[in-house]
């Protein structure tokens, strides 16, 4: 085994993961911007962009599989490659949430908004910021940085609950808003899920650095909170 080949390959995969992360981060932010501005054209672009995200994810996956097959990595190298496979999958799923939000914007068309969007863009910003820092920690194998990020997921969860209650109030007081409110509820739910997946990325960083597999946040499940 030549170290240089493997080191080079690992660096390349981490760079690619970071690049994919940037695309996904923008997709999340732009999907909510499009929703806020009711910009259907922008939403369509985001929807299309998901194909690129999926493609890049497979490229990373392929690179990692080839590195495992040809370089027989061990110890931390192996943990990095296994984690790259996992994180590329998480990013692809976060990309799907952005695509889902874009689809809602397209479906909503020019229906009048039921309320100005305040908490949902906040959720998007928090999630994108968490994702950004989680990926920086990931490519630096920085467990200390990674372990602090999931705590912020509580803020996203808090905003989600707030949005949920507020939209419920709209629906109860005026059943004609049910369709539009449900759309927004989906958007909030997608963002809440995206932030949970950021937590998974942080768990991977801790695994690379320490070899320990600890679930950081037990609220990370598919059930509605």
């Amino acid at each position, binding site marked *: 085994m030549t170290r240089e080949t493997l080191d080079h390959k690992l660096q390349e995969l981490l760079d690619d993961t970071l690049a994919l992360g940037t695309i996904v981060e923008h997709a999340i932010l732009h999907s909510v911007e499009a929703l806020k501005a009711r910009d259907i054209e922008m939403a369509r672009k985001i929807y299309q962009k998901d194909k690129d995200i999926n493609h890049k994810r497979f490229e990373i996956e392929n690179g990692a599989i080839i590195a495992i097959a040809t370089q027989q*990595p*061990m*110890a931390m190298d192996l943990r990095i490659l296994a984690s790259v496979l996992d994180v590329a999958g998480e990013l692809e799923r976060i990309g799907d949430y952005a695509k889902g939000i874009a689809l809602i914007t397209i479906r909503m068309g020019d229906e009048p908004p039921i309320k100005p969007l305040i908490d949902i863009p906040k959720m998007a910003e928090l999630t994108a910021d968490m994702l950004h820092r989680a990926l920086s920690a990931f490519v630096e194998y920085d467990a200390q940085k990674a372990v602090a990020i999931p705590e912020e997921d509580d803020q996203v969860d808090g905003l989600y609950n707030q949005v949920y209650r507020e939209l419920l109030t709209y629906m109860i007081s005026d059943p004609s808003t049910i369709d539009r409110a449900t759309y927004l509820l989906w958007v909030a739910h997608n963002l809440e899920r995206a932030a949970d997946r950021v937590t998974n990325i942080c768990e991977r960083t801790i695994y690379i650095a320490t070899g320990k597999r600890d679930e950081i946040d037990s609220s990370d499940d598919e059930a509605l909170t």
Partner: protein
Amino acid sequence: MNKISIENLTLHYSDDKESLQNISLGIPANAITVIFGPAGGGKSTLLRVLNRLNDLTDVSFMKGRVLIDNEDILDPRLDVITLRRRVGMVFARPVVLPMSIRQNLTYGLEVAGEKDKSKMDAAIERSLIQAALWDEVRDRLNDPAAALSGGQQQRLCLARVLALEPEVILLDEPTSGLDPISTGKVEESLQELKKTYTIVLVPHSVQQAARAADYAAFFLQGELVEFAQGDKLFTNPTDKRTQDYVEGRFG
């Protein structure tokens, strides 16, 4: 349950080339324990201690104990022939005797006093099956062993050890001269054999160490750096030196 207990074993050769420094290690029964590390780390020395092959080499200093089933095998009163029957060894290069395949297997039994032909036939079949060679040689047991391929010869050497029904099998880079298919066959038969025997393997590569190890001991310059279950040691080693070695950063 440990079959072999090595307690504070220190050994120096007179030329100081390779040595063991205060090694303590328990080798579990019915498992493959892999001893690995860079050249000159003490792997082969340790293996040779386990069936007293070092008796013939120039050891200038040795202390500590090596217990097999609680019996100290370094005791000078111990019968070495009996020990070597209990602790068989397969070397890197297959050395077949210039005889037929059958005679290669019966030679040891005859020396050990076995005369019953049906018992010998049974031992031949059993040991060849265990070494994953039976199907390839069953119809030509009287052919000269030297006519076998390298991989077959190595499995014959393994069968020769197995014919004597040892308790422990030591293997010193048994597949270093074999092609990948023969290597695979030997590795597979080890997985079967560990159900019955205690196996100590010095592998020829880190990859083989990782494939084979139930337990792994990393040796560096005569020191036991780390001993752990294979699953743990090759994915998450504790010592930085182990990590660097398995990741190919030196050695």
